[in-house]
């Protein structure tokens, strides 16, 4: 991988800064975000495994109040969302934005007094983010959960997360206006949009559901809007920015059909917010809302198809050799997962299918495919590309990287496949009122058992990834020490 995978055209007055200088300006904050994100991911996977074991042996770790399913499951989910995915997306977003815009963070060459102050501020923000995740997780463990799905952190922890995001996000968005390429890439648009949406979505949902809750009769649509938006409008756009910006450069070809990509961007923007409403089909909300959710879920196939056309239209003239690299493999599998969530999402949006499958493992499998597939795989790809450039040398252990890749893919598809299959069975049984509920529970046992196996594979994959980054960071630390 060359150190110049992200070249830029010249703009008068906005001379691009050397990519090494850009990397130097953001090296520490981005590495803090990446390193912590990966380690939270390992913990999230461990908790997910414990949670899945509890479904085959409810007595496992029983009798301890803070280790019940109801506390561990939200802990695992929130660590996945805020400890891992959002933090990795922050790091990936800052790095991609700075490199695509050809500007160091903090203006000038990134070395002045202003640059240093800004860097200190951003580093403090990354520490604040991790503190919020840690304390929020412990609060759920200690029995202070809010009980709102995906927003379980107490009000002070969510306020810390939002503040931390704003401190990092504002500078990232402002980079767009000082970029050196006159014609912005779609990836840059996705990044600007994602960094604007997170504060809006997270702030609105926390304000109306946690900080100053509205009457509960109005909370359902807001909850669903949040669950849809946080995936489709914050995490997915950053993942797509990674796919759109890195894949063409890694494969040495250009992105065709730019206008189509632009259309895809606006379509995703328009539909992303409505997408979550399929979580309430048949629920206690006005019928037009869930109808809009059905339409949005089906139409979501359009931006997904556009991503596919862009990516695979481009790869046709690519050389096979280039596709062998780990970053591009992850980015490609991420693109396939985007297709997967598009198809699965459209299917479960159909009222007839939703009627039997809405409360089953299919919903959970879809969420897993979103977070671990469409979002995490591209983020892995960005990390594998970014970290060597940030550290200034090829720091990955190739064997560990290859094992991480294969185990992630196997574990992910196994997990999603089992959850969807198990969900189909329980869904059909649930729609037949003559089958007793406890009977259905016993049917789902083999599926829960295989879920455990899949979670174990995913845990192995993330432990390997964690070992890989720890190894890289430790070597980097020793190298720097020697130079000093």
């Amino acid at each position, binding site marked *: 991988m060359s150190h110049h995978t992200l070249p830029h055209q010249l703009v008068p007055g906005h001379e691009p800064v050397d990519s090494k200088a850009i990397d130097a300006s953001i090296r520490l904050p981005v590495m803090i975000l990446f390193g912590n994100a990966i380690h939270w991911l390992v913990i999230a996977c461990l908790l997910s495994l414990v949670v899945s074991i*509890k479904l085959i042996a*409810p007595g496992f770790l029983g*009798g301890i*109040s803070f280790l019940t*399913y*109801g506390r561990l499951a*939200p802990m695992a989910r929130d660590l996945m969302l805020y400890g891992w995915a959002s933090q990795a997306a922050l790091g990936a977003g800052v790095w991609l934005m700075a490199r695509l815009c050809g500007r160091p963070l903090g203006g000038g060459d990134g070395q002045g007094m202003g640059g240093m102050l800004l860097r200190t501020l951003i580093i403090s923000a990354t520490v604040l983010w991790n503190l919020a995740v840690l304390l929020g997780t412990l609060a*759920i463990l200690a*029995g202070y*959960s809010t*009980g*709102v*799905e995906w927003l379980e952190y107490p009000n002070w922890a969510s306020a810390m997360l939002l503040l931390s995001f704003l401190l990092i996000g504002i500078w990232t*968005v402002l980079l767009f206006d000082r970029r050196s390429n*006159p014609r*912005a890439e779609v990836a840059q648009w996705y990044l*600007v*949009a994602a960094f*604007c949406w997170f504060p*809006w979505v997270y702030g*609105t949902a926390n304000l*109306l559901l946690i900080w100053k*809750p*509205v*009457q509960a*009769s*109005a*909370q*359902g*649509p*807001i909850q*669903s*809007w949040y669950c849809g*938006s946080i995936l489709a*409008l914050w995490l997915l756009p950053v993942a797509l920015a990674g796919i759109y910006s890195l894949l063409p450069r890694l494969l040495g070809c250009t992105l065709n059909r730019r206008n189509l990509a632009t259309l895809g961007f*606006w379509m995703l*923007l*328009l539909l*992303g917010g*409505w997408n979550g*409403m399929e*979580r309430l*089909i*048949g*629920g*206690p909300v*006005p*019928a037009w*809302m869930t109808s809009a959710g059905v339409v949005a879920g089906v139409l979501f196939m359009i931006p997904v198809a556009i991503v596919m056309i862009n990516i695979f239209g481009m790869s046709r003239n690519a050389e096979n050799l280039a596709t062998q690299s780990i970053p591009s493999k992850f980015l490609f599998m991420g693109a396939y997962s985007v297709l997967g969530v598009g198809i699965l999402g459209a299917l479960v949006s159909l*009222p007839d299918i939703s*009627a*039997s499958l809405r*409360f*089953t493992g299919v919903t959970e499998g879809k969420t897993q495919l979103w977070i671990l597939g469409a979002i995490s795989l591209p983020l892995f790809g960005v990390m594998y590309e970014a970290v060597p450039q940030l550290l200034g040398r090829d720091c990955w252990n190739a064997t560990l990287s290859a094992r991480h890749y294969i185990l992630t893919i196997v574990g992910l598809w196994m997990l999603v496949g089992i959850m969807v299959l198990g969900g189909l069975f329980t869904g059909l049984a649930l*729609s037949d*009122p003559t089958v007793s*509920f*406890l009977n259905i*529970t*016993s049917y789902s046992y083999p599926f829960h058992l295989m879920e455990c196996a899949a979670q174990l594979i995913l845990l192995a994959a993330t432990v390997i990834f964690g070992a890989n980054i720890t190894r890289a960071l430790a070597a980097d630390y020793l190298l720097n020490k020697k130079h000093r």
Partner: protein
Amino acid sequence: MHRLPTLLSGIFLVFLISWLGLVAYPVTQLGRLTPVPDPETGGTLPAVYGGQALAGQRIYATEGCISCHSQQVRQTSVTSSDIERGWGTRPSVARDYLRDSTAFLGSRRLGQDLSNVGVRLPNAKWHYIHLYHPSAVCPGSLMPAFSDLFIVRKIQGQRSDEALDLKGSDAPKPGYEVVPTAEAKNLVAYLLALRHDYPLPEAPVKKAGAAQAK
């Protein structure tokens, strides 16, 4: 769209559509629903929670009951299986959640729907035993035991009225009894208060005969 203000305005406008529909509309419309008079008792519907039930609602939140239990009976236009399973006599509507501090709609049913658990299972003693050891009353249940919500203590004089009637291996040592803590009592008070079997103008209850015919 190559200047930041232009791009931001575009992003803002498009995003505003879903925000208006799914945030502003619910807050201004559903958030202003009011209770309706109850002709039978002279009170209001939905009924106000008692103090214990309100405290129990917090336990429901902090214990993460929503991870496995939903609280919504779906519209019959989508599926009639929720009503046929006995989870309710009519579909849930927004007004049903008026008295809640959080709408515990839920997204998975690893356990049963609880919107009408107070109607279905009105016996507090049953709930105590079920919380203490779920598979004692529901063999094969996936629910974890919430034995932390109970205390085992030596019987002082006479056995407490609140003591659980536990059988077999669950039974405490002779001379000891298992009694619910305040948290357990609050949680059960909340579960028993989950009753949405009353008719509302937008959700009439069908005649009992029609429901039982299934």
